[in-house]
């Protein structure tokens, strides 16, 4: 499924994508406006959200380097991650996440989304396209 997201309405230059998470007991978060971030290795979320999702977290051996310095980080597996909204959704089951205590935003990183989709960002028109990589 090809997606086109227009993020002009968010009054921001950073590409925003709607996502949500579902716990193993089938309870869903509301929709998050996440940042599509090729600088993030993986799906990155706040540690307390990971705990709410019931993710078993393992501390990373080394601190994660961020733009504002290094931060303690954890890894785990989220039961269900949903990209998109309103019927145009892609579900990822058992997706690897990185959790950080002072995570500034939900970051949709290289794994799994950039590995599965060819992503074209048209920053001038504030829209981006996700095309499945065959």
């Amino acid at each position, binding site marked *: 499924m090809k997606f086109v997201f227009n993020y002009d309405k968010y009054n921001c230059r*950073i590409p925003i994508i709607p996502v949500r998470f579902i716990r193993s007991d089938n309870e869903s*978060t509301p929709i998050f406006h996440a940042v599509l971030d090729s600088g993030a290795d993986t799906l990155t979320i706040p540690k307390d*959200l990971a705990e709410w999702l019931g993710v078993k977290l393992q501390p990373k051996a080394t601190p994660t380097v*961020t733009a504002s310095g290094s931060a303690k980080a954890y890894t785990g597996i989220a039961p269900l991650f949903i990209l998109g909204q309103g019927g145009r959704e892609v579900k990822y089951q058992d997706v690897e996440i990185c959790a950080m205590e002072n995570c500034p935003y939900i970051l949709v990183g290289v794994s799994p989304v950039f590995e599965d989709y060819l992503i074209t960002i048209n920053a001038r028109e504030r829209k981006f396209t996700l095309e499945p990589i065959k």
Partner: protein
Amino acid sequence: MVEKKIVDKYKDKWLLRNKKNKILYASDSVVDVVEEGRKYPLNEVFIEKKLIPGTCFF
């Protein structure tokens, strides 16, 4: 000239907004905002932080 400081009370907070972009709830805790947001139908609200120009992540 006196420089006027604008204090944004929502800076760095997790925000719950409705479709009209109205802020319904704000907190430092993302879990508090998730729980508040779960009181509304799924596609009626969303959670975000304010992204001001110059924001940089990784």
